């Protein structure tokens, strides 16, 4: 449970900071956004991230899976190289290009974020499936599992923790990227930050940045838990066979 403590404290601090900034009501001649405005912006921000992430999972996992197949291995390595280069394109540039192509707004932001989210997911799916021990696959095949059974019963369960880790990374990173997207599309917490920067009011910038950070921490914690749930028990590093309480009970039964 200890891994909860630090994120929980940070989360509370960030939320506290947000509420405090809202309470200021005005800074100089500028009116600070109200709490409900901040909440709407946060919700928009979350929508942006989740929409992009959902699309990226729907498309990225199958791509990663397909390029890990032997027939497509020749694509796999150059594609991964391209994917890695793709990630080095500056966020702002990519989003600007997306908004030029699609027009600014929610949709352009989603498309830009989707491209960013796609990369870690494709890469992790590819890596996760390729990391399955060939001996395990050979055994599965040799015992008479069909191709589909090898995939569904062996490869995917074993690759699942790595795939989920990719989703988690890309989600957390995208909360930050979405703030940049908001600067261009005018949606989410990014718009608060842009406004704050434009009028040079630090408090207003903080009002956008603090909830964004809080969102990232919360999503990371939730996905971390999902990752633990989806990791098969035999793969967990410390697979506790019995709980401490059960052990204690057993010890008592032994007459201690």
């Amino acid at each position, binding site marked *: 449970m200890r891994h909860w403590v630090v994120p929980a404290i940070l989360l509370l601090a960030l939320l506290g900071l947000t509420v405090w900034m809202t309470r200021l009501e005005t800074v100089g001649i500028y009116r600070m956004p109200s709490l409900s405005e901040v909440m709407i912006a946060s919700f928009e921000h979350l929508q942006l991230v989740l929409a992009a992430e959902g699309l990226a999972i729907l498309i990225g996992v199958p791509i990663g899976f397909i390029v890990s197949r032997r027939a497509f291995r020749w694509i796999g390595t150059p594609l991964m190289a391209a994917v890695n280069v793709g990630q080095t394109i500056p966020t702002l540039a990519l989003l600007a290009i997306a908004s030029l192509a699609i027009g600014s707004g929610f949709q352009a932001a989603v498309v830009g974020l989707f491209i960013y989210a796609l990369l870690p997911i494709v890469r992790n799916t590819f890596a996760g499936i390729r990391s399955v*021990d060939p*001996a*395990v*696959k*050979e*055994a*599965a*095949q*040799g*015992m*008479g*599992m*069909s191709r589909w*059974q090898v995939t569904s019963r*062996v490869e995917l*369960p*074993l690759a699942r923790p790595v795939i989920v880790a990719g989703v988690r990374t890309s989600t957390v990173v995208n909360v930050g990227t979405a703030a940049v997207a908001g600067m261009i599309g005018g949606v989410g917490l990014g718009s608060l930050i842009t406004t704050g920067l434009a009028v040079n009011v630090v408090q207003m910038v903080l009002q956008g940045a603090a909830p964004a950070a809080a969102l990232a921490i919360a999503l990371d914690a939730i996905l971390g838990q999902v990752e633990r749930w989806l990791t*098969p*028990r*035999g*793969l967990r590093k410390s*697979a506790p*066979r019995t709980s401490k309480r059960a052990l204690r009970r057993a010890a008592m039964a032994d007459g201690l």
Partner: protein
Amino acid sequence: MIRLEHVSKVFADGTEAVKDLSLEISEGEFCVFLGPSGCGKTTSLRMINRLIPITRGKILIQGIDTQQRNVNELRRDIGYAIQNIGLFPHLTVAQNIGTVPMLKHWPREKRRARARELLDLVGMPPDTFIDRYPSELSGGQQQRVGVARCLGADPPILLMDEPFGAIDPITRTKLQGEFLKIQERLQKTIAFVTHDIDEAIKMGDTIALMKDGELVQYADPATLLAEPKTRFVRDFVGADRVLKGLRLLRARDVMKDPKHILRIDESVSHAVEALDTRRRQWLPAVDDAGRFRGWVEREDLESSETLEDALTPAVTTASPRTPLNEALSMMLASATGAVAVLDDDDKLLGLLSFGAIRDVLSADDESDQE
């Protein structure tokens, strides 16, 4: 049971891994594919369950061409164990063992009962191990589960690719012995790949020795050791092949009747006479029930009143079933250079001497000359 007819394998890069291989493994036979790495033994094995497609020729199992069968159903009827074991890390021991039964749609309870039965068979207490994950087992335990898993749906045929390859020598010897006992009971038809000549001699009813994709000699271990067909076979089985051959012979095969047996209650002068007329330094002595008591040596008799006083008890004795290589070690440790072969009631059946073993070895040498 398993018949390979002119089977060849040419890989996409042009290497001919197996060349025109024909052999038959009869029902209940333990056949070892032996050879140096790259000789095509694993390829041959994997063609039997079609993990590698055959280029030319065909393989029949119980008279049915394997190509005619659905590949997955074919494999479900053949147990398969590999060196790297390949246990499913995300499944429990019970689920691992129950893999093929699950593919064959056995009900859950039956699969679990089968897993318990097989764990018992491979010497792992089911209550302790059935719900463990592979990561919670030692290397030797994983190998045992691997063996249990290939027996999962009780297939008549087992293919085993160095199943005891990845473990320490002590555990390995133990598992080999245990597996032989299991095989004695189950009488499976087994194709077993190894590069270890000692393992092949120990385990195989027959050995198929391969080199560069060709079958060099297919024979039982004794024949392979005594009558190597080519120079390669002789080199491969090793310079100590004669010693290895000793392992296949038992004391009862080479023991000789003692020339003279002393009775423990005979007089000393009588014994001296018996020794001198036969020009022997020692003779075995038995009691009136024919039980072996030990050795009487000529020089000990000089200062003794009775044979009992002069008696040197034997350090070790052999049984008719003792392998000759063990008997040879006993001889080296024995003061007289001979070993008495006794039955279960300690009755003297015969004697083993260096001479008797030399006779066996020289018989081998003669066959070498041919």
